[in-house]
């Protein structure tokens, strides 16, 4: 086909700017990274080698080793855990009212700018 070169690159008009997520480690190291829409905060952390996210079960909400503490002002936007996730939080340590399992937080446009804190220890 002659018009093959006219095809827009994948970064064309259709895709929006990627939401940014800031991970703050327990020692206050800050990482701000881009996240893919529809992926999870856990996957974003692994892709960017964020310390403190283990994700032993690979995102099945079965291990509680991807715990994050959502920043207070972001928690109402992220929302509370599902009953299933709440059960799994029982296996985590130092659980706070704003704690979530990052594999259960889907990246949406509304989460652009999200701040989460990673714990010093994931139960292992």
């Amino acid at each position, binding site marked *: 086909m002659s018009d093959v070169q006219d095809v827009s690159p994948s970064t064309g008009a259709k895709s929006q700017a990627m939401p940014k997520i800031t991970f703050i480690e327990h020692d206050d190291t800050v990482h701000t990274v881009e996240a893919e829409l529809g992926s999870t905060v856990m996957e974003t952390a692994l892709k960017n080698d964020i310390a403190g996210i283990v994700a*032993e*079960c690979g995102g*099945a909400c*079965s*291990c*509680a*080793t991807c715990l994050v503490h959502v920043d207070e002002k972001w928690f109402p936007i992220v929302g509370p855990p599902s009953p299933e996730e*709440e*059960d799994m*939080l*029982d*296996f985590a*340590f*130092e*659980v706070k009212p704003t704690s979530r399992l990052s594999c259960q937080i889907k990246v949406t446009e509304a989460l652009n700018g999200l701040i989460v804190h990673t714990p*010093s*220890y994931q*139960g*292992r």
Partner: protein
Amino acid sequence: MSDTIKTDIVIIGAGPVGLFAVFELGLLDIKAHLIDILDKVGGQCAELYPEKPIYDIPGIPYITGHGLTEALMQQIKPFGPTFHLNEMVTTLEKIGEPGFRLKTDAGKTFEAKCVVVAAGGGSFQPKRPPIQGIEPYEEKSVFYAVRKMENFRGKNLLIVGGGDSALDWTLNLQPLARRLTLVHRRDEFRGAPDSVNKMRALVAAGQMDLKIGQVASLEGGDGQLLAASIKTKDAVERVACDAMLPFFGLTMKLGPVADWGIKMDEELIPVDTGTFESNIPGVFAIGDINTYPGKLKLILSGFHEAALMSQQAYHYVYPEKKLVFQYTTSSTSLQKKLGVA
């Protein structure tokens, strides 16, 4: 101590790949014993995602971890594998060319021509709470499992957790204990409703205590616990206790595999991709625990590895025989082994 169990092959790990190895070995008349630290077969499929869907098993568009385990158990039934559950292999020692002696933490001894390490991410072991200074108390007054209930008679016990393990041990140990306190981070329990009701009845009757909070620190000396501080919603409470039992589920740890003289790369066993043998002839590694160029940690890769491993193992188990490759579809002898001919 029991007599030595002699078998062709010992498979360490009864996850999907270890189970399928029984099938491939069985077609070649190789008998297997399987040892797993969990109290059930299925490995991660049983422990981490029994109800979660798996979409990438060839020919099966959708199956749960539990479903896959059940199907594999049905598939290997004709070969009558022997399972040793709730046991961890502690030592592996070379006694022949090839030939190996293995010991488990349950005191069993095995002798086998070959060993297949199908241990996935390692052994599932209890999670240790990150309470500062907990280590000196472990196995002295902090226990992650109950071996003998009698050891807790007349003691002040602290049980931590909200699942079935925590609740079951609460109900079992409450009659023996001097005083039992259950600590859980929220006033909801994911354990069986019947156990929750029984526990609440004991609390209502004043026969045990329930604290909603998290253990913040421990107090004691020489491995002997005296008290724990429980951080509740708006206070810190000190609870006197002689022993603490935390039940926070399981996590995968490599375990003793690293001590057996097998060459390791990080926490994985490098293998030859023609035979899936480690650096020790007769010791194979299949599934998530092995590594080679291009390795993918997929169940389907493990199945392939099991098939090739079995071909090589045959030469060790039957050194005098020639192996003729056959298909289950057309071979009467294979179909007889499967009980369908």
